[in-house]
């Protein structure tokens, strides 16, 4: 049994202990708060880096597309126009008229193609029209090669809240998946499904190509495209699921929360 005096001493001891604990708690909380703030800043810097890299890659891809199109399409059209005009014989008025008509038509086609290229040059402005339109535009270039049949489905209504940075990253992911299909899959049919859901956007890209066994991919092979796609999806808080089997095509599904 404690005497009243001893009880007071114990109480004082407990209060002192409480104060010591209070100071320890304040310091630990400050350290944790600081670390959280530091991590947040680092994440932000990392995100900015990825965003910058994405913008550069989109530009690079655009330049590649333009280069290829100038060589394979507009270049050919202009060569054909030149050949047609060169072959005109002025003493045969009817034939000359037909060839001039054909040259005009080829010229108009070249102008149309040039306009399309002009639009492509403003890649970032393309995204201002919306992610949906930007993807549609990208698909039109894939379809132009004549090797692929692309089905593009858009489901749901986009909410008013948008996020241009996430749009840019999702657009780049789509470009990268399409690049992988063109380079490796030997697919004939591609289905792209963009689904607006209440908390985000789900993108599904399915092809009927050769497919692959995910477990068999070496680190180097993964590093080429899949890691980039995964890294980009993660940086905007998204998830990625890949389903593929040799000979059974590939399905890449990405969910990114918005805004």
């Amino acid at each position, binding site marked *: 049994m404690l005497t009243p005096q001893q009880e007071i*001493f114990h109480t004082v001891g407990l209060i002192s202990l409480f104060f010591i604990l209070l100071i320890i708690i304040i310091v630990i909380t400050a350290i944790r708060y600081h670390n959280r703030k530091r991590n947040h800043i680092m994440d932000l810097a990392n995100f900015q880096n990825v965003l910058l890299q994405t913008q550069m890659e989109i530009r690079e891809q655009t330049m590649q597309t333009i280069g290829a199109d100038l060589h394979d399409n507009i270049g050919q059209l202009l060569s054909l126009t030149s050949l047609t005009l060169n072959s005109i014989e002025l003493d045969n008025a009817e034939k000359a008229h037909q060839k001039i008509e054909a040259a005009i038509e080829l010229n108009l086609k070249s102008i149309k193609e040039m306009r399309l290229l002009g639009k492509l040059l403003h890649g970032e402005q393309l995204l201002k029209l919306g992610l949906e339109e930007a993807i549609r535009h990208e698909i039109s270039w894939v379809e132009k090669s004549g090797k692929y049949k692309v089905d593009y489905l858009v489901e749901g209504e986009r909410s008013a809240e948008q996020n241009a940075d996430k749009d840019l990253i999702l657009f780049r992911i789509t470009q990268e998946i399409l690049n992988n299909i063109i380079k490796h899959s030997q697919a004939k049919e591609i289905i792209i499904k963009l689904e607006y859901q209440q908390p985000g956007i789900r993108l599904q890209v399915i092809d009927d190509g050769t497919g692959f066994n995910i477990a068999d991919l070496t680190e180097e092979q993964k590093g080429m495209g899949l890691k980039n796609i995964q890294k980009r999806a993660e940086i905007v808080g998204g998830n990625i699921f890949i389903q593929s089997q040799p000979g059974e095509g590939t399905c890449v599904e990405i969910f990114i929360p918005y805004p």
Partner: protein
Amino acid sequence: MGFNLSAFFNDPNCPYYLTYQSFIVAGLVLSVIAYKRGAMRVFFLIPLLALALLVEIAADVTTGYAWAYHLYNPIEYTLLSLYYLENCKVLRYRTLVKWFIGVFIVAAIVLSRFVYKFSSLPALNINIEGILLFVMYTHLLFSIDAEAIIYRHPDFWISTGILTYFGGVFVCFNLYSTLLHLNPDHTEQLFGAVSFPLNIILYTCIVISQICLLRNKKYFIL
């Protein structure tokens, strides 16, 4: 007031006093080096540490030294507030702290003159000072530059030292004075066990903060 040097060396707590006074000297020397190298933020720490050393020496070797604490207390509060102001970026808090410096000096003089008559230890002044500094340095602790590593930041150590010291002093002055009437011997032991390490913690933290400062070039104007 009179000198009593032999009493100081015969005091069983003499090693403790010498230990923490050497920490004050170490902190002072490091602050001077940092200031000479261009770390302007230690400008207010140098007079503070020099004054703390003088007051502690006066308290050790003289009798009737309480007046020194009455003088030291408002100066200590002012210098620590100015150090906080050097590192606080929130305009509203800066204005508030500037006002409080004047208010506290007036309050401390009034309390010293009319309550303590410059004769006994100014417990109330120290408590008010402690509460205000506790709030200021908690804020400073939470506003350390997020890009820095917290353990290498001088403000982390200074804030931790001040929170520990003034938190402890607050407990000592408020609770132990009431216990003194009940059992003086027991209270003195308890007081010693709690208060003696406080000074050592405070000045150790100041020394560590100055080491962190000297090791990091970004605090210097080169």
